């Protein structure tokens, strides 16, 4: 009998057609239905726990494309997460991954680690950076850590320049939003953060960046740290479930999916404040969707020159968020953007959280295909919402490629009248 998390798989194979690991490896063990089969075999005691089993279950990008297409309504990620927990309990995890789970459980630890990493980036001699890799990505292609965490920098910036940012366009006065920055924007990609901030303030929206927010917890959940996630949920709900907040803006699809889908479910499981989780979930919206819903044409006047842009749709946006088409809508709406869709725009980049680090060979195969197709569009900007996709895809673009990966907000911010060309 299958366990209670989903229905039986009838082995129709639809999931094979969308699974990036199956397509990269070409073997059934890398397919969603095989993972479901093995989980069922394991719970029926037809096979025992083993390193091999752990490897097969973990060699998955957790992109959720399988659940999205499955006619039997199987919730693959949920079943995989549970199985991963069991396997990690039985066979442990790599020390680096274990430390990640440890780090992400407390903001102070993340901050310290990011600081140390920035130091290391500064002192690693150039020759090493040229030669060494983090998983599948060359060290020198890795993004540079923010000088100070974005939330700190933003607080200072907002204090310096209160309220009005731009001339000419009257503020919309939409209301107040809370901005959930995610770890990536806070420690790696402040350009995204400043772009989001500039856009919202330009649109006349009052932005609050809750100080106590911390990692959404998904990376821990995917690596067997279910218990650790509890305190992250509590911390985030406490600062996001505030009076007078009209929307919770996210710039990262994984954080968005966590707040929108996982928190209510986990709150119920852990007996946390379910009402708060529901209230927050209701308000979560990604920045592109927010812009598309509330901006007016005059907010983003025409750029003087045309920018050629292509797009990569992150799996967590496509499979977990209500309006996955918003970033593309934005690209089409911005006057002066020539949007050229890539052949495999909506297929996984192979990044998958820590997947690129754990399974570099598979990841590289998937990413290289994406890069070839993106280059073929002749675009100069490669827009994508997810920071891990950005790290991963950016990791394969060497200096010779005339292509830069940016967040949609970063592109949109270039169109703001007074802020053109602002460096993050």
């Amino acid at each position, binding site marked *: 009998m299958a366990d209670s998390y989903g229905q*039986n798989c*009838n*082995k129709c*194979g639809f999931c094979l*057609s969308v699974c990036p690991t199956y397509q990269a490896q070409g073997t059934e063990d890398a397919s969603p239905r095989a993972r479901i*089969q*093995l989980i069922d075999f394991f719970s029926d005691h*037809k096979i025992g726990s*083993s390193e091999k089993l752990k490897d097969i279950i973990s060699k998955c990008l957790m992109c959720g494309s399988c659940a999205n297409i499955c006619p039997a309504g199987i919730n693959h990620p949920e079943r995989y997460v549970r199985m991963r927990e069991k396997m990690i309990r039985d066979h442990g995890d790599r020390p680096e991954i274990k430390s990640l789970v440890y780090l992400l459980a407390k903001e102070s630890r993340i901050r310290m680690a990011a600081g140390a990493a920035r130091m290391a980036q500064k002192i690693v001699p150039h020759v090493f950076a040229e030669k060494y890799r983090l998983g599948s990505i060359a060290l020198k292609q890795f993004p540079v850590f923010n000088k100070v965490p974005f939330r700190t920098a933003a607080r200072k910036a907002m204090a310096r320049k209160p309220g009005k940012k731009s001339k000419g366009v009257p503020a919309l006065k939409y209301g107040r939003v809370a901005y959930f920055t995610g770890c990536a924007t806070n420690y790696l990609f402040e350009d995204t953060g400043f772009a989001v901030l500039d856009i919202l303030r330009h649109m006349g929206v009052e932005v609050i960046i809750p100080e106590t927010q911390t990692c959404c917890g998904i990376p821990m959940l995917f690596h067997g740290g279910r218990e650790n996630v509890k305190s992250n949920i509590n911390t985030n709900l406490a600062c996001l479930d505030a009076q007078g907040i009209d929307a919770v803006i996210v710039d990262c699809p994984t954080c968005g999916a966590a707040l929108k889908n996982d928190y209510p479910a986990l709150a119920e499981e852990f007996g946390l404040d379910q009402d708060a989780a529901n209230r927050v979930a209701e308000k979560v919206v990604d920045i592109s969707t927010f812009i598309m819903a509330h901006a007016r044409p005059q907010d983003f006047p025409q750029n003087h020159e045309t920018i050629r842009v292509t797009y990569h749709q992150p799996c967590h946006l496509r499979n977990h968020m209500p309006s996955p088409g918003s970033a593309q809508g934005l690209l089409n709406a911005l006057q002066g953007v020539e949007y050229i869709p890539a052949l495999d725009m909506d297929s996984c980049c192979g990044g998958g959280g820590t997947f690129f680090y754990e399974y570099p060979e598979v990841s590289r195969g998937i990413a290289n295909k994406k890069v070839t197709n993106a280059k073929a569009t002749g675009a100069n900007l490669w827009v994508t919402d997810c920071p891990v996709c950005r790290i991963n895809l950016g990791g394969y673009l060497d200096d010779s490629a005339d292509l830069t990966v940016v967040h949609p907000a970063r592109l949109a911010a270039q169109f703001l009248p007074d802020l053109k060309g602002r460096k993050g």
Partner: protein
Amino acid sequence: MIDPDAIDNLKKIVGKDRCFDSAEQLACYCYDAYFEEAMPDLVLFPCTRDEVSGILKICSIHKIPVTARGAGTSLCGASIPAKGGVVLCFSKMNRIVEINTKDRYAIVEPGVVNADLQKALAPFGFFYPPDPGSMAMSTIGGNVAQNAGGPRCLKYGVTVDYVLGMEVVLASGKVVRFGSRNVKDVTGYRLSSLFCGSEGTLGMVTSIILKVLPLPESVSTLLVTFDDLDNTAKAVADIIGAGILPVALELMDKTTIRTIEEKAHIGLPVDAEGTLLIEVDGVKEACEKEIKKITEKLEANGAVNIEVAKTEDERETLWHARRSVYGVFAKLSPSLYTEDIVVPAGKIPEMTRMIVDIADKYKLLVGVMAHAGDGNMHPMIPADKSNKEEWARVKKAFDEIMAAAASLNGTLSGEHGIGLAKTEYLPLVMDEDAIEFMGVIKKAVDPDGILNPGKFV
């Protein structure tokens, strides 16, 4: 038990990375889209014809069963290794070797996924007509071995109509080639046709020459509803009888429509007793003319509503509804038993009634869906295999459905094949001599019966 030396030698041919032998990996090759399972002893992923040949030589010496596999989407259990042994999986042998639109052919390796071939042909303005519902994941090798069809096969024909030639490795390891790159070729027996529908029992297909066609200039799709199922089927017979050949003529009965609508909310007409999804293609003017003629026939048969898709999006929505049938029924229960009997198109109303009566008798829910133009019907019964009593009723219902189809001059399978699912029903539609003749052919090319043993021959 397989001889350990033989295993070592088999492993040497493909190397460590292309050989699976752990319990965990083997468990991923004990199933296909049918509901039975059987464990292989070894799974090998050949990349070349010579590797296939080498593997078969060893297997024939040691009499090791060999079951070919593409994507494992067979609905009749054809790719389940019923007697264990080696699974020879072609998923890594997936190059499109040549596309030649001037001479209208493509050469592919067996592991090429049908949809990937379509994608590769589209920029040339060409397509490969056979379009099984599994085209996004099933392989051309599997399509050939099952002689797969799909909705547009009404107008265009099934796989066998597109195979010009192939390369096959026989059980002994010997490589034979037949057919050619020519769309016209009557040189000797049409051996490639023999291999279409052979379900991997005669040899391993390692290369296939396929006929391809230019994409039609335009396509139109209609959704038609009726308040009477007999009228629905009569309309089908009338359209075909008048010499009109749409690309697709798909019929869904009341239960099917309601079930889809309840689960998927696509806006289907839930009051209809029957619906038809009709598609025509060709030169624009010809399409319009055809639709006009079809509309006349539909109206004459009491169609309640005829809706023509105005945009590509609307067209896609209609097809989405049709394609979601399998999924919606799959959601209803843990196991979905689906069949694909065929009856002469004119017998569809009668057969539908028989199916519904049989299901009622055994207190089972049944949805009927048909590629009505060619009489190919898919009764779908959602049930729970772990509920022994219920499953026994399902089994009995299908016994009777098979017999009913045979009694109407129908046959057992229009596209899914025989495999493990229907071997026992063969005598309903084939006489002893014909079955024996298949055995003679099998013996000639696979004297020890190592290729896909435990199946229909």
